[in-house]
């Protein structure tokens, strides 16, 4: 088998395994997995920019929130149906990521971190400022009755899980395709050495903007899906904390590995869930685990896997 075949089988296999898991796992865990898949989409969007292009953003919560509020407000005030509302969420995330990308890409490195952080912070405050419509920190509920797509009830365990899986699979395959395409290789070239990429004739600025936009829209789709599947939109999701989460998930799972974000998100979720069952001081366990991981798995879980056993991991 060639590496390309291997990686194709890997991606298809992961999706099939996830689909089967719904029928095997107890209800609690399949419910968790639905949420994890949505969040993993957010992390995959982040991974494209951070893991493959080498741009560390601290403001991705802005894109997540753009998708969430684009969908939420469209349903709340204009009675959009879920499909149209998802499109509204994606459009808002697209517009926001173009604007942010256009301005923030004038900077690199730490300045890029700060500029994205500041834009996200301004976005969070804007949600509070327009509290009359957004209900600020408290947020609003998307009623159960509105969360139907045709005959599919998105609030049923199965409807929710397979909608989440569908979104995950689409984004997973898109990422798998991108990283093998010329575009993806150019992004890696930028990550490894921006000057050399410029000298080789790549339009670095344009490529980076495209990466920001794809990454932003993917994060936005996760935000829209979260609001739709779990029935709630709130400003908490626009806070800095939610910008740091995808960074953490990606670093834990393995930056620049296609399955890294999924692994990192699952790991972090169950780290909190199980340690909180052992002790109320679960943050202590989570903190220790993070420190130990940095010491012993420097490239994240999937990164270690690639380094030690599976050098062909995309």
């Amino acid at each position, binding site marked *: 088998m060639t590496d390309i075949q291997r990686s194709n089988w890997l991606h298809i296999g992961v999706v099939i395994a996830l689909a089967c898991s719904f029928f095997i796992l107890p209800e609690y865990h399949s419910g968790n997995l639905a949420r994890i898949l949505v969040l993993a989409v957010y992390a995959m969007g982040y991974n494209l920019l951070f893991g493959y292009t080498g741009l560390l953003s601290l403001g991705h919560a802005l894109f997540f929130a753009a998708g969430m509020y684009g969908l939420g407000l469209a349903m709340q005030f204009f009675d959009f149906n879920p499909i149209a509302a998802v499109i509204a969420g994606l459009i808002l995330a697209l517009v926001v990521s173009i604007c942010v990308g256009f301005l923030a890409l004038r900077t690199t490195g730490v300045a890029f971190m700060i500029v994205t952080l500041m834009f996200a912070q301004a976005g969070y405050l804007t949600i509070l400022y327009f509290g009359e419509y957004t209900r600020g*920190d*408290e947020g609003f*509920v998307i009623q159960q009755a509105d969360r139907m797509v045709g005959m599919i009830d998105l609030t049923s365990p199965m409807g929710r899980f397979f909608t989440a899986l569908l979104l995950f699979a689409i984004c997973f395959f898109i990422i798998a395709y991108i990283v093998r395409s010329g575009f993806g290789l150019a992004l890696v070239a930028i990550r490894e050495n921006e000057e050399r990429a410029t000298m080789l004739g790549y339009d670095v600025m344009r490529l980076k903007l495209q990466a920001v936009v794809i990454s932003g829209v993917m994060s936005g789709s996760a935000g829209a899906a979260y609001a739709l599947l779990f*029935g709630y939109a709130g*400003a*908490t999701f626009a806070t800095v904390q939610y910008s740091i989460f995808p960074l953490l998930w990606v670093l834990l799972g393995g930056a620049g590995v296609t399955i890294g974000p999924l692994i990192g998100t699952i790991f972090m979720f169950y780290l909190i869930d199980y340690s909180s069952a*052992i002790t*109320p001081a679960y943050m202590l366990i989570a903190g220790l685990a993070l420190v130990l991981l940095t010491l012993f798995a420097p490239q994240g879980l999937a990164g270690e896997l690639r380094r030690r056993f599976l050098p062909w991991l995309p």
Partner: protein
Amino acid sequence: MTDKKKGPKLVSRRNTLKGIGAGALLATTGMPKMMGYAQAQTSEPIKIGFQVHRTGIGAAYGRWYDRTTQAAVKRINDMGGINGRPVEIVAEDDGTDPKRGAEVVEKFASQHNCDIAFGTLFSHVVFGSAPRAGELKLPYFVVSEGHHVASGKLNRYTLQPGITDVKSQVQAMAPFVGDNLGKKVTMIYPDFAFGHDHRDFFSEAIERQGGQVVAKIAVPPAETSFTKYFPKIPRDTEVVYHVMVGPAVLTFVKELGEFFGPSRPEIFGFIDSLEAVDINSPGLEFLEGTYFWEGMPRYAQANQTSHDKLYREAVGVDENGASTSDPKDVSTFAHMFGCWETLNIVKKGMESAGYKGPEDRAKLIEAVEAMSDMPMSDDHPQGAKRFNGKTHQTFGSQYISKVTDGKLVVSHTTSIEDTLYEDEVDYTTQPF
């Protein structure tokens, strides 16, 4: 699965074990003739999932909600439990975060197999969790004082029977403020939905009194320095109305005092601005003579009821509203009674519904919806309540206290009628 469920929870359950033990003993010895399966079923505990803010911004409240809940459960178990079955609290931290809150509700419903979920305070966590509770058909009893339940934005499975909501609290304050303190009011509130509720409901209510809000100052979240906002208070202000939440509340009140110096207007505040804070902290001397809304009087009053006394003893709170083991550890007295009263209502609801297990959840909701007047008693130490089954919201008296010699002394008690408003929803028409 069973191993997973039993092993890890030991620590958070330890406090309840004693109570459960007593309850279980009562339950089994009380009915010696019941045999076999029936006995096993009756002595199996009723599991109440307790969504508690152990970490995050609500942790100071969460600690006292926890203590109150443990005390209430101990009392219920000492009295024989619910329908002869002991009550077990399954506590999970929600990190004061709406996402984790929803996850915790799922955990209660599908992993711990709890009978109900209970105890949430911060309204964004309520909003984040309530849709999942509704979908999982898990009765969700919140203790949040938000207007979310009564506004009709939630669902039939979410109820708030043990604590009044912000709309009724705020509108009941307006007559007192207008008649006794002044007609021109400046409001200072956090730029959160909670603050906006204060702004909207109070402005409306004070206008009905012939008063007027002359300035509305919304303070951004996570602010730690406030003086720069105070110059926006107009000179002709007669009353400053303040409400603030979060860890910086003491700074806020202190800087308010430093700003005005010797010539302050009348000041009326919601005790939220000083919840879990000692009113005699350095820098708060200027509060002498100002007024506070209190959900339940923090200091034991001269005419203390036997119910208040029993409640304080059970929870471990002294006459100054602080922990009996550490006088510096001030409780969140104006809110935490809601946990006590809610659990007693759950008990009554389960008893009148003949609750046996999760299949009776809808019956439990209907039983609570059928409740109305609840007189002041050991079960309701804060005062009489009137529950509105249609809006799933309770109504009750509010207290206005004046700071006198460094203590909060009640100077006015509103009637329940003062707090009523028109129904905004009828949840009973929604299907289960």
